[in-house]
């Protein structure tokens, strides 16, 4: 028996088809819990894609972030009334959205010719980072040395973004006692 070796493109295409079908299911299904589970499956598909594309850092982070995202979504949808009576179907909205998506896909197919071919990136800056990385920073994980030494500003601003998001959540979910006291 001879082994069949698949290139990365052959491994990725069925996975992407699975993700597209999973996301369509997540958007169209009526039951809320099923759609949350479907988006969880899409996230795990993205994790496997990151593993195929040789990015282990991202795979670990995406998996645990996906778990947390599922917990938050279940919190938002449990015990909430979800039955929407079938009102008039808004055809204008659906038709205009589909026209927009079709025009976007046509133009993007023409624009994707300009990208370098899949598998042969132009690595001008990255080759500099790789050749000088271990001598200048001393870290053997290239991604960690990029996010914390060469591009440390991005991480600093990202920490402040996270702080702002947590601040926003704590402001939005404040207790409403004060507003009721003001109204009465």
């Amino acid at each position, binding site marked *: 028996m001879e082994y069949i070796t698949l290139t990365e493109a052959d491994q990725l295409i069925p996975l992407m088809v699975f993700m597209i079908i999973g996301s369509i299911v997540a958007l169209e299904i009526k039951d809320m819990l099923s*759609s949350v589970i479907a988006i969880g499956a899409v996230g795990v598909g993205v994790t496997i894609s990151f593993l195929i594309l040789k990015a282990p850092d*991202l795979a670990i982070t995406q998996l645990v972030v996906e778990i947390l995202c599922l917990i938050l979504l279940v919190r938002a949808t449990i015990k909430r009334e979800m039955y929407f009576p079938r009102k008039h179907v808004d055809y204008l909205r659906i038709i205009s959205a589909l026209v927009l998506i079709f025009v976007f896909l046509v133009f993007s197919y023409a624009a994707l010719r300009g*990208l370098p071919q899949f598998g042969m990136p132009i690595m001008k800056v*990255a080759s500099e980072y790789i050749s000088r990385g271990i001598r200048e920073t001393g870290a053997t994980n*290239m991604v960690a040395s990029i996010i914390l030494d060469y591009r440390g500003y991005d*991480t600093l601003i990202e920490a402040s973004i996270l702080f702002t998001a947590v601040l926003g959540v704590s402001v939005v979910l404040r207790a409403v006692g004060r507003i009721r006291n003001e109204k009465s």
Partner: protein
Amino acid sequence: MIYFLCLVFFCVGLYGILVKRNLIKIIIGMSILDYSVNLFLVLTGYRMGGRAPIYDKTQEVKNMVDPIPQALVLTAIVIGLAVLALMIAIAVRLYEKYGTYDITEIRKLRG
């Protein structure tokens, strides 16, 4: 070809934001958009026959994949989670105030 499939994935999320009436479906659509953009960025940095960008003690790693898109996407994943948390907080608040997740109803009951 793979890039085009990734953009079709992007368009599914876009469709979810534009057409759906349920607020949770809109949030799920935005999450799908996030996944597709991260995947697209990592796809541009892949090298055929490359290895993960981590040095090894026992062997010499010659051709690595591009580590810069991975560094950008690493923070983008966590930022996507933070934005999702804020959106869900706003959605929970809206449900407490209006009693429904339907955006056409929320537009009608003003105040």
